[in-house]
């Protein structure tokens, strides 16, 4: 019954650094298995150096040394066309880019060339995949921007002439103009102010729903996840530790790390003390044995420091990698079901 667009199995991607005679493996992605369905927004949450950026690099086929895929497979299914970005040739990748698979990055400046007008950037990326000639291409781009309610005058601007929010909206326009089936959004709103952030998120979700595309949405901000995603995968120290529908993760987390992330979010209208997590994320070069979270985990027992917990089903589409998954309870009673003080003023 499930028809995943992306299947990742047992993926391991390490940074192999040989410096000054010593070889060091940084296990940025360690044994990740997941599936992404057509038309869903799948959130990836994790803090800095959790390996989420490396995972995205592999999925986006942007693997450059020292990052290497050690094991496992990645499989995109674009309407029957199967592609593994870790093994595909350059020509194959060039064919799927933008047409089937596109990106929205944190710094729009890394996509928008600062010395080219927006229109030229659109041409550079999208003209070939769309296969349209000059005038027809221009008409198509204008129609698309119009549809996104962006002024077509931006096409004549240089990136620096636009505000940060407008630039990020243009990047969304660029990523969606070829109507790809899959988009990778890496912290697309992190640098934006709250008002603009909400507008950009709203735009992204609207186009996604219209096109029926899938999005992998990476951010460290759990409140963005709560509002944007259908499902979330929580990444800790290179491993997927919990995965499930967004609402389930927020209301019934089954991994102590998730429980902490969710409980530590303060809300307007709620002044209950919020717990804080002690310790620091482990080094990926020398992760702790067993469960990588155990040194910081309040529930850790002897087995946690000895054996790696498998990512196992704990409910409907809900998986958790914790030896004590059935004992995990929300740390702060969720306030959602009560009328939490008027957030919408």
């Amino acid at each position, binding site marked *: 019954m499930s028809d995943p667009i992306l299947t990742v199995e047992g993926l391991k991607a390490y*940074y192999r*650094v040989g*410096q*000054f*005679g010593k070889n060091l493996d*940084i296990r940025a992605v360690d044994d990740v298995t997941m599936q992404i369905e057509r038309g869903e927004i799948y959130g990836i949450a994790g803090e800095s150096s959790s390996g989420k950026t490396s995972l995205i690099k592999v999925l986006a086929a942007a693997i450059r040394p020292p990052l290497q895929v050690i094991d496992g497979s990645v499989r995109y299914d674009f309407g029957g066309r199967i592609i593994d970005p870790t093994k595909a040739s350059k020509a194959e990748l060039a064919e799927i880019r933008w047409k089937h698979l596109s990106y929205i990055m944190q710094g729009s400046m890394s996509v928008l060339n600062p010395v080219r007008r927006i229109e030229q950037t659109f041409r550079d990326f999208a003209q070939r995949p769309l296969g349209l000639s000059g005038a027809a291409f221009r008409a198509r781009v204008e129609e698309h921007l119009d549809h996104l309610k962006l002024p077509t005058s931006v096409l004549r601007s240089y990136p620096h002439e636009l505000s940060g929010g407008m630039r990020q909206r243009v990047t969304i326009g660029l990523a969606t103009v070829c109507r790809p089936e899959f988009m990778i959004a890496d912290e697309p709103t992190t640098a934006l102010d709250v008002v603009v952030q909400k507008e950009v998120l709203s735009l992204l979700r609207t186009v996604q729903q219209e096109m029926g595309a899938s999005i992998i949405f990476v951010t460290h901000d759990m409140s963005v996840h709560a509002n944007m995603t259908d499902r979330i995968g929580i990444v800790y120290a290179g491993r997927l530790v919990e995965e499930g529908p967004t609402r389930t993760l927020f209301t019934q987390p089954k991994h102590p790390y998730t429980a902490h992330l969710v409980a530590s979010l303060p809300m307007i209208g709620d002044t209950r003390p919020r717990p804080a997590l002690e310790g620091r994320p482990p080094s*990926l*070069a020398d992760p702790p044995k067993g469960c990588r979270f155990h040194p910081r985990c309040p529930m850790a027992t002897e087995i946690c420091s000895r054996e790696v917990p498998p990512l196992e089903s704990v409910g409907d589409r809900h998986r958790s990698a914790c030896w004590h998954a059935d004992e995990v309870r929300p740390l702060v009673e969720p306030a959602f079901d009560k009328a939490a003080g008027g957030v919408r003023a």
Partner: protein
Amino acid sequence: MLTTFRDLFRYNIEFRIGIVLVAIVTVFAGLSWFSPYPPEMIYVVVPDQPPSAEYWFGTNSRGQDLFWNLTFAFRNTLGFGLLVALLSRIISITVGMTAGYLGGWTDRALMFVNDIFVALPIFPILILFYFVLRNDLDMVTLAIIMACLGWPFDARLIRSVALGLRHREFTRQAIFAGMNPARIMFQEHLPFVMPIVFSTAMANMIWSIGFEVTLGVLGFTNLNIPTIGTTLYWANNHSALVVGTWWWIIIPVVLIVIAFLGLFLLAVSMNEHIDPRSRLRRMGTGV
């Protein structure tokens, strides 16, 4: 610092070659202390002998053993280069860091002076000094003059780094930790400037030795002091290539090229490796 040099030596091929080349010329210069003949004596051996087992580098038309004579020439030339580099570093660090950290009118005043020095025509000034001082122009005096002329470009470079450091958060943290400007400049900021100091020191040596050779060849230095410049001056004076004493020209030129190449490789490899960012990467934060 020491570990950096050790790592560089172990893992950087340019640095290793550079060290070997510089070591060759340094050891060669050091042999001057064992010379059987004092440098200023002439006609102590049979003139115009080609290189042989007895005279490794041959002898020149002035009756000097070229091997021993060149050891003195290198000692003087390298010593001169080092002294210029050392003195001009002191000036450029002081000016660059003060201008960059204090900013404001101090910066403007110092950079005004700096720009005057940049604009000065060095060669005519050096010749002027030669005509005024004549035989009083020894290597140390010449080094001091060169150092006073050789700092402004590097001072500007150091200033630009210091300017960037001034606006870093840790500088404000240091201010609020009660550190005074001198302490911030020399303890907090100097380590970031050192890579530039080292790599420009090598470039500065190449520059000053080049000038010394040029002045010497043209006869605008004290010709009684053996240096690479004066050696070439005397060779030219005795029409070495015409009368067939080629070794008098070729051997010093080859040796000075070795010295330049060595210094250049050191400058390049150090520049790349003492850079604090690559140092941090090596310590494992950049990944």
